[in-house]
């Protein structure tokens, strides 16, 4: 993996949720990667990896392989692809494993940030000191790709390592290993009734009394953001916590603008003070 990063050039593939719900993740990721010295290219067109259709029973592994091959060869046209979504990461890697002749590597943006965390740490100089975070790596990375997934060195997982390198405190919580429920089917069920798994996960995270929730998957981000929003509306949660993708948090630590660059105003649960001038002011009561 380190060898791939030495090439200093990659294509950033955002996936559907970063494109249509949290574009701050896309913009932060691109700006962070550029700040770390990469030339970042964009696909000619973003075409869905196919995971939503796969989990709905509409397409199988063969179609996923064909879709990945078309994406890689005709639209992405680069041999190093970086994504901020566990679902896209898992789908591309499963398909590429079945087609070893493709000679293309798909990395997760969290993996790149983890590999370069010492450099990032030098650049930000403990700017998150005093912030308490809880992390959720996500099942399509931790479990679906468990043979390939990076585990923690300084903390329990790669997100904890990154948060610690930024100077944050990492809190533990009861349901850390539990799924966020993002791939719960069927959608009408999910929309009408909150998934019990999502409820359990979010309640446990909020009870940990963290300042923010750190994730590395846009689907997990959507589920945890949306579940808190709904639970607060139903009177089941007294307080809610912003959910940030790791690219957004690193971006803020590097001094990016919370709205213009990181897009925090697009979240269902926004920071406490979106106009705060310091990163701590965004998440902690003045």
């Amino acid at each position, binding site marked *: 993996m380190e060898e791939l990063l030495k090439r200093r050039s990659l294509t950033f593939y*955002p996936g*559907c949720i970063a*494109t*249509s*719900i949290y*574009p*701050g993740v*896309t*913009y932060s990721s691109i700006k962070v990667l550029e700040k770390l010295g990469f030339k970042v290219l*964009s696909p000619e*067109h*973003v*075409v*869905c990896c*196919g995971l*939503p*259709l*796969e*989990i*709905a*029973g*509409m*397409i*199988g*592994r063969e*179609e996923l392989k*064909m*879709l990945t091959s*078309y994406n890689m060869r*005709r*639209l992405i046209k680069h041999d190093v692809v970086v994504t901020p979504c566990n679902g896209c990461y898992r789908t591309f890697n499963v398909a590429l494993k079945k087609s070893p002749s493709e000679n293309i590597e798909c990395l997760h943006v969290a993996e790149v940030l983890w590999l370069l965390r010492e450099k990032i740490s030098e650049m930000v100089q403990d700017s998150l000191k005093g912030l308490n975070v809880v992390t959720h790596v996500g*099942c*399509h990375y*931790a*479990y*679906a790709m*468990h043979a390939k997934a990076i585990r923690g060195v300084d903390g329990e997982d790669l997100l904890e390592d990154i948060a610690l390198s930024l100077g944050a405190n990492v809190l533990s919580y009861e349901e850390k*290993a539990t*799924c966020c*429920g993002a*791939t*719960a*089917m*069927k*959608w*009408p*069920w999910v929309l009408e009734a909150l998934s019990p*798994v999502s409820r359990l996960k979010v309640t446990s995270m909020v009870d940990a009394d963290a300042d923010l929730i750190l994730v590395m998957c846009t689907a997990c981000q959507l589920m945890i953001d949306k579940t808190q929003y709904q639970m607060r509306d139903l009177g089941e949660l007294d307080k809610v916590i912003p959910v940030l993708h790791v690219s957004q948090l690193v971006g803020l630590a590097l001094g990016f603008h919370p709205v213009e660059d990181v*897009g925090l*105003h*697009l979240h269902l649960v926004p920071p406490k003070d979106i106009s705060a001038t310091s990163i701590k002011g965004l998440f902690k009561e003045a």
Partner: protein
Amino acid sequence: MSFSPRRVMLNVAMGREALHDHLWLCLLCHTCEAVCPNAVHIPEVVEALRRMLVSRGLERGDLEVYLEALDNILSRGVMMAPVNDKVRDFNEPRGLNPRLLPEYVRAELRKIIGGRGPKPRGKKA
């Protein structure tokens, strides 16, 4: 009702009919696969059983939203358009809004994923 990977595998092993609603409770989180002592790819089995149900037209009503997602992918590449004006306004100056796919891309995608999904009830795939 709760999901049990063991119950799914037992049904398959016994050659019983798939448990319809039960199959849709699986989150496909792969946790069972990661800890399975026999390295069984349980999510792949669940997905295959779901495809059988879908191809028999049993799930059309509940999966309508995925037909919309398929249409969106075939036209703009992504499963849903930007969800509101704020997202569109953020995307626009940064060149991040999804564009209509050119016909040659749409034609290729139709070959790979076009026509997939729940069939009308009562019709065999």
